[in-house]
């Protein structure tokens, strides 16, 4: 495989991981615009552990992913008291605050960035991305996923039926944060250099766009969205000057025509008659 193709597939793998980090909270009706902040926690945390404490990569990645998930719980409990645009703004600010902390943290290079010595090869990234997809497909077959959809549909009725709405929302937020941290940790060890600007709010916004484009009704929506947003810009590379404009026009038209996203639950029901 050419270096170019490998590079594109690695970018796709990271985009898939990031998309699934956004997916679970979004499936419960929470727009998390701070996902890049959790990726930064995972990236810097794992890089510090391998650089300074000489942990093996797998342990550093697992620990940092868990750390991001724990931060997700700590942050999710107060932040998820807000709803709608206020939640979006709160998570947006959260992403900025986390990036600003790392930008000023001398122990991890501050504004100069932080070189990472240990290396995670492309195959490791592919396997981990496949693992995240498998985990999300598994979750989608459980009551947990069913309750997230129920909460998104009608939190009042979900509550009256005994579902602990806050616990479910915080859990979805924390799992998303853990997946983001896991992806960030891998990112640091594949590219061997991280700086706070890598985890700016644009990353969060693009990732949300992958999921909204693919659709939140099906677990395969984020996968399709990430593939589309990674591959299509590459295919349009020949029209260098216009590709972003064309791409943007297409996205605006698509979201206007099909706001529910490309992959919907009805599509799967039509295909196979759904739950048997």
């Amino acid at each position: 495989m050419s270096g170019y193709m490998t590079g594109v597939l690695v970018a796709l793998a990271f985009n898939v991981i990031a998309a699934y980090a956004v997916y679970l909270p979004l499936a419960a009706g929470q727009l998390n615009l701070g996902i890049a902040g959790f990726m930064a926690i995972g990236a810097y945390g794992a890089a510090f552990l391998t650089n300074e404490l000489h942990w093996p990569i797998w342990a550093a990645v697992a620990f940092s992913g868990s750390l991001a998930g724990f931060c997700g719980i700590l942050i999710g409990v107060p932040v998820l008291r807000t709803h709608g645009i206020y939640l979006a703004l709160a998570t947006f600010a959260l992403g900025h605050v986390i990036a600003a902390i790392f930008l000023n943290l001398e122990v991890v290079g501050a504004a100069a960035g932080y070189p990472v010595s240990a290396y995670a090869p492309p195959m490791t990234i592919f396997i981990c991305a496949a693992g995240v997809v498998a985990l999300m497909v598994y979750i989608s077959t459980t009551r947990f996923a069913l309750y997230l959809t129920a909460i998104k549909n009608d939190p009042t009725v979900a509550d009256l039926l005994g579902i602990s709405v806050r616990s479910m929302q915080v859990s979805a937020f924390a799992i998303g944060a853990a997946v983001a941290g896991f992806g960030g940790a891998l990112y640091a060890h594949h590219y061997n250099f991280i700086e706070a600007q890598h985890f700016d709010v644009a990353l969060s916004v693009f990732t949300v766009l992958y999921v909204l484009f693919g659709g939140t009704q099906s677990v395969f929506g984020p996968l399709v969205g990430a593939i589309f947003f990674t591959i299509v810009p590459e295919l349009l590379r020949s029209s260098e000057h216009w590709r972003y404009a064309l791409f943007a026009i297409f996205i605006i038209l698509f979201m206007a025509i099909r706001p529910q996203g490309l992959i919907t639950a009805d599509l799967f029901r039509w295909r196979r008659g759904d739950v048997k």
Partner: protein
Amino acid sequence: MTLALKVDKLTKHFGGVRAVSDLCFEAQTGQTLGLIGPNGAGKTTVFNLISGVYPVDLGSVEIHGCDITHMPSGQRVRVGLARSFQNVRLMSHLTVLENLLVGQHVRAASISDLLIPYRLIPNHRWKREAREALAECGLEAYANEAVHALPYGVRKQVDLIRATLAGAKLLMLDEPAAGLNPTESNALRDHLRSLKKRGITILLVEHNMHFVSSICDQIIVLNFGEKIAEGSFHQVRQDAKVREAYLGQEGE
């Protein structure tokens, strides 16, 4: 018979408006109690107070001897309280079967229940139970339909089945017959009678007096948040205050 529901001096204000005032009533186990009154009488507010959607200002609510007045709304289903809404509130992005599975939550709420990949297990007991409940009402053909595409009458029935699958001992139904055609209304009546035979207590808000008279053992009439009459359907229809509330005073 044991006491299923006891409402004592229930009071609720919205700003300066007294929506419910010193309301007292009781329901015995297996009884069907009708809550009627003109529009704005406070019937739905009483439902929202009992189910915990609104906090109670004064008074108390007990279900089977358990004081639920200040219990969080999400925990009331655990003492056997389930309700439907005036406007059917099913989860529109889910299928009929999935809506019923959500209704079973109170009986499948452990961590292991949450993480079992039930969708991958053919004929899992939860799905089987939900299908059986649908079959009892002749709705099994709708199991995999998305609820937003269903006729109104079917959605009403699914809403009722979901409430019963929550293990309800006290079922509160807000205008269950509204919008139903006579055939659907008769089917609903049969369904409620079968629930009553199982010992489920039903509290019913309804404007269709024919339906109320055919199903309710006891009627409570509200007007401006106050109880103005209580008794059998034939007793309350003779009551002067009830006639005045519905028809207005002579000479008005």
